[in-house]
Structure formats: structure tokens, C-alpha cells
């Protein structure tokens, strides 16, 4: 987990397993005559690349579009714009072919398992639909899956019903079910936020293990910056449907560049902090029906300039290679006096 720095350089040159370019999702508003024809701009022009053997974290508050992004990548929701690339080419057509490569694990482990079926049926069904590995019986394959997610002894767990399991164990079953199809990509949408604190790390470590041993490409969607720093190789921060910052996990968490990431970090509870943080850019995210023009963070941003109100900033390089921030302050030649690094470096 600590040696990610070495793998970074080689991995960046690989073709991503799954890549999204310019992803857009607008949901039509169905209620209210005043809003007829209006859309919720949930995801706007998002680029993201998932590489084999890497965890990419998407961090954001509620309404930032992070879960919608996961659903778009899983093709559970139709794209409004943009495209998905699979190993640099067209993704597998047909939902079953796509599902056998890309699997989604959802947040709520209590709602995502059918309570009337046992684990043998739940896991066996995925194996039957997508094919049992050669040379194994169905039961052997199910037990192998249970062992991969550390539900041992597997010959006891195979007999259990979902209600007999704790939240953490259920989430492991969800992950096992996703693994049954032998996917290349695992999309985990807030996989630990509904679990008890003391068992969250177990599930995060399982994801790290799947990345390291089985070279899965993992998307980890979360609102918890600390857990993203712990697990991920890359952190992508979303705000109001757009990516505001992206880069190596530890670098983004330790020296955030975008004013929103800095705000987010200063708000996270941190027992090691000596004095109370000063929030810069308080307030709430904007309505996504009529999002602000230009940078969507500008109404809250302490460094907002005229340009920010008109033009949407592109992802500009900051820090080490692969670290970008969508902020006009990082345009070369921008007024360094207003640099957020100078203003709130103490918050980091």
C-alpha cells in the first residue's frame, strides 16, 4: 500500500481498462410547470480513467454527482453525452457482456441482498448466468468466492441466509457476487459508509487486497477523504457535477490545490489539528437545475475573479505529473498573490 509511488509511473503509460471522456448526464425535471423542460445537470464533462491494479477514489459531498458517475460507468444509466472506452476501444456491446467486465457494488448491504434466498442461491445465480469456471463444480466455485472475500469457513457460510450476517459480512457477499463474473473493473459506491466504524477497515483492506493480488481496476466512491487517502492511488474530487481536482491520493490530500478541495479538507474532523480550522468558502452547493456559469464553485470561492464567473476552467496541471486542478488560479501567469496555496496553506 505504501509502494504506490513506484507503480504510478509505469501505470500511467498503460491504456486504462475503462476510460470515460467528457461524460455528461442531465436528468429531466418531471415535476412543476415552472420547470417544464428543465434539467438537473448532474454530471458535466467528466474525464476519468480506471487502470488495472489501481484504486481511483471519487470524493464529493452529496449531490456532487459521484454516484451518478458510478452508475454511468456501470451503464446502469444512459449517457447524455461523452463516451466510454474499453482498453482504448469500443466497450463490449450488450448489457450482459458489459456486466461480465464491469460490476457495481452498492452502498446499502441490507437492501442489496434478497432476504428470501441463501448465499448458495445468491452467489450461484451469478455464476450460472456468467459461467462457472472450468474444472469446478458450482459449490466449489461458490466456496472459492467466499474464501476470496474472507468469509470462512466457507462450507458454513454457503448455507447462511442474509439475515444471519452482519453488515460487514453482507458487504463481503456483495463483493463476492460482483467477483463471480470475473470482472476487470469493480465500481464500489460508498461501500463502507453504512457499516460500523470498527469493521469498515476490514472491507477497505479487502478492496486493497483485490487490487494488489488480482489486479482489479477499482473505483471507490466516497464522501470520506481520509478513507480515500488510505485506500486509493488516485483521488478525483467532484463538486456540483464537475471534477475540480485529480491527482495522486496522498498529494491531493496533503497539499490540495483547488479552493474547494482545501475547503473540504479543512472541514474534515481531524483529532491531530491544534486549533479550530477557518472555513473559507462556507455556504452550500448550487442548484444543479440552474448551475452557475463559469466555475460552479465561484459563488462560494474566496478567490473568485471575473473570469471565473464566465468561463469554465479546464483541468490545469499542478504539482507532480497527473495532478490537475480545474481552477483559473493555476493558469500560468495568473496573479500569484491570489493563489489559494498562499491563502489557506495552513488548513492543509
Amino acid at each position, binding site marked *: *500500500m*505504501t509502494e504506490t509511488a513506484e507503480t504510478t509511473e509505469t501505470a500511467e503509460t498503460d491504456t486504462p481498462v475503462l476510460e470515460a471522456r467528457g461524460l455528461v448526464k442531465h436528468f429531466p425535471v418531471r415535476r412543476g410547470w415552472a420547470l417544464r423542460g428543465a434539467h438537473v445537470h448532474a454530471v458535466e464533462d467528466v474525464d476519468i480513467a480506471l487502470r488495472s491494479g489501481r484504486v481511483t477514489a471519487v470524493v464529493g*459531498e*452529496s449531490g456532487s454527482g459521484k454516484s451518478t458517475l458510478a452508475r454511468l460507468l456501470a451503464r446502469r444509466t444512459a449517457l447524455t453525452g461523452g463516451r466510454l472506452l474499453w482498453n482504448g476501444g469500443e466497450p463490449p456491446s450488450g448489457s450482459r457482456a458489459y456486466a461480465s467486465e464491469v460490476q457495481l457494488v452498492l452502498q446499502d448491504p441490507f437492501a442489496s441482498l434478497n432476504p428470501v434466498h441463501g448465499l448458495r442461491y445468491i452467489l450461484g445465480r451469478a455464476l450460472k448466468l456468467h459461467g462457472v469456471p472450468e474444472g469446478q463444480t458450482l459449490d466449489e466455485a461458490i466456496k472459492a468466492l467466499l474464501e476470496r472475500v474472507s468469509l470462512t469457513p466457507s462450507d458454513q457460510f454457503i448455507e447462511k441466509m442474509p439475515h444471519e450476517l*452482519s*453488515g*460487514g*459480512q453482507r458487504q463481503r457477499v456483495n463483493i463476492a457476487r460482483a467477483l463471480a463474473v470475473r470482472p476487470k473493473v469493480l465500481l464500489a459506491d460508498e461501500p463502507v459508509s453504512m457499516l*460500523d*466504524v*470498527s*469493521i*469498515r*477497515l*476490514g472491507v477497505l*483492506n479487502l478492496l*486493497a487486497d483485490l487490487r494488489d493480488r488480482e489486479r482489479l481496476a477499482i473505483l471507490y466512491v466516497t*464522501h470520506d*477523504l*481520509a*478513507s480515500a*487517502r*488510505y485506500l486509493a492511488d488516485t483521488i478525483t474530487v467532484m463538486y456540483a457535477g464537475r471534477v475540480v481536482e485529480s491527482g495522486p491520493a*496522498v498529494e491531493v*490530500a*496533503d497539499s490540495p490545490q483547488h479552493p474547494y478541495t482545501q*475547503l*473540504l*479538507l*479543512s*472541514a*474534515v*474532523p*481531524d*483529532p*491531530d*489539528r491544534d486549533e*479550530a*480550522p477557518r*472555513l473559507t468558502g*462556507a455556504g*452550500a452547493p448550487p442548484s444543479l437545475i440552474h448551475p452557475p456559469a463559469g466555475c460552479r464553485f465561484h459563488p462560494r470561492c474566496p478567490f473568485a475573479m471575473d473570469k471565473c464567473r464566465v468561463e469554465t476552467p479546464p483541468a490545469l496541471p499542478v504539482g507532480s505529473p497527473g495532478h490537475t486542478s480545474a481552477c483559473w488560479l493555476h493558469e500560468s501567469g495568473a496573479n500569484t498573490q491570489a493563489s489559494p496555496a498562499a491563502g489557506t496553506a495552513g488548513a492543509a
Partner: protein
Amino acid sequence: MNAPVLEISDLSVDYGFGPDAVHAVADATLTLRSGEVLGLAGESGSGKSTLAYAVTRLLREPGVITGGSAVFHGDDGPRDLFEMDGEEIRALRWSQISVVFQSAMNSLNPVFTVGNQLTDVLRAHRRGMSRSERRARAAELLDMVGITEDRLRSFPHELSGGMRQRVMIAMALALEPRVLVMDEPTTALDVVTQREILQELGGLRERLGFAVLFITHDLSLLVELADSIAVMYAGRIVEHAPAEALFRTPRHPYTEGLLNSFPALHGERVVMTGIPGSPPDLRGLPAGCSFNPRCAHAVDACKETAPRLLPISWEPAEPRRAACLLQTDGFQAPASLTRTGLRAEEIGSTR
């Protein structure tokens, strides 16, 4: 040290009767001092919310308070809350002890305006106030939590989650209570909103001087916020200490494990393990110490005797208590639970 305002002693709460009863809270003893923030941390099912409901006498069937007392030092001297009749507790609740729950969304009535609901509190408890006085007070309360006066005419659905939670806090402070019980007040909110609300709360507490019983599962938040912290596990308080001491030098293996379950925001990334196993089912608690099956330091005696919450045997003068056999006479506590006075840098390297 400030005078106590709420003294909970040996509180026990069951759900149901007879042999099938579930002991949700067992022998909880806690003292809340005036002007203090007392944090109560625990995972789901640890009994922390049940304790809050019991103390405010809001516990519903099949919950039963089976023992103990909760002495409240109010305007008319110390009184046991559990001995008051319905009318007495009704007069006391909200005027001297008020509560803010997690889901502000469900706590406000959707068909009345915010102003209407704020003045309702005053109408019930401050009979002498005129209509215009009530309205002025409601506006003042909203202003106190950072909401403009024109929101008095808003309905709850017109406000964001953070604003609704602020309205709940304004409402809870309307009668200037001595004690504010907050049960996961910010869990449903985003971190930035959470931070804003907690900063406002801190300012209000300095001005108005109320004490807070703050219940949450987020121990890292409590370390920043609380003066002292009590940690609950399976219905029992397992450790109670000043916040800084609990964070730097935990004395109970569960506290230690819980602290090790929060990835740090700084420093080297290291593999952390959390706590093995999962929280126990209250219907069939393990014999002896409820934590022993998950405890790395458990000895045979832990499976037989349930430890009591006692001062630490080798530092009896410290204002802290733990319910761990290893911290009593005749046992040797492991090195990680006997550290003293570490500075922040050192703890970073050992954890």
C-alpha cells in the same frame, strides 16, 4: 471543575420483560458538568441513543428503565428525573433539557412554517409573551444560528438539510436550557455543513453556557469537540476520560481499536486493521467482558468476570476510568494501553 448539572448513576435500560429482555444499557454512570461538552461514542447497538432517550424520559415501549437514577440540578434544586410525574417532566423538558435528533428532516412539521414552529415552543412554555414578542424572539433565535429573518415564513421543504438542522438547534435553545442532548446531530449532513454547525454551536455555548451531551459514532469528531468522552460498547460504558487523554493514551482495548479504525489525514500510509469480528448481538452477549472475543489482549479471566468501570489501578489519581480487567490490580496491562503523556509526533509514529 464545574458543578454537575446531570448525574446519571447505574442506569439500566431493557427492551422487553423477563428472560427475553435485551439489556440495551447496563449500569451506566456519567456526570455532565455545567458548560461542558460530554461526548458519548459507540457503534450502532452500543446503547448510546437509548441512554439519551432514557435520560430525557422519551423512551418508548418496549423500552423500560430498570434501575438507576438521573439527578438533574435544575432551577429548583437536584431532582431525580426518573421520579418526576408526567406533568413535572413536561415542564422541565425543553425549558431546561432539550434534545436535537439526527433526522431534522423528520423532526419539523412539513405543513407549518418555521416561524410557526419556533413560536409554538414559546406559546407552550412562556405563557406571558405577546404575539409580537414571540415573533421577535423567533427572529432573534434564527439570527443566532445564522439564518436570516425572512426564513420565518419558509416551510421546512424550502430549506436545505443544514438549515433545517440549524432551525432545530435554534428551537432547542429557545428557552435557554441548561442541558442540550444532541443525538448524531450532524451525521446526515455533509462535512462542510457539519463544520459550520459545530462552529456555531461552540460560539453559542460560550455565550449561553449550556452543557452538551453529544452522541455520535464518529470518535475523531468528538476528540476535536468534546471536553470529555465516554465510549460505550454493548450497552456498557467501557472508558471515560478527558478527550485529549482518551485520544492520546487510551486505556481500554476497544477504545484503542476504535481509534485505529479511523485512517489518518496525515503522515505515512500504513495498513490498519480495525477490530476483528463484529459488534455482538445484545440478545446473546458473551460471558464475562462483552468485548473479549474481539480483544487482542484478552486473558482467561476476561471470559468469566464482567469488569466494572473503575479508576486505573496504576494511575488512580488521573480523572479517568476504564472497564477493563487488565487495568485492575493483579494484572499487567499491555504496553499499548499503559503509555503516558505522548506528544502528537510520537503517537503518529507508534500508531
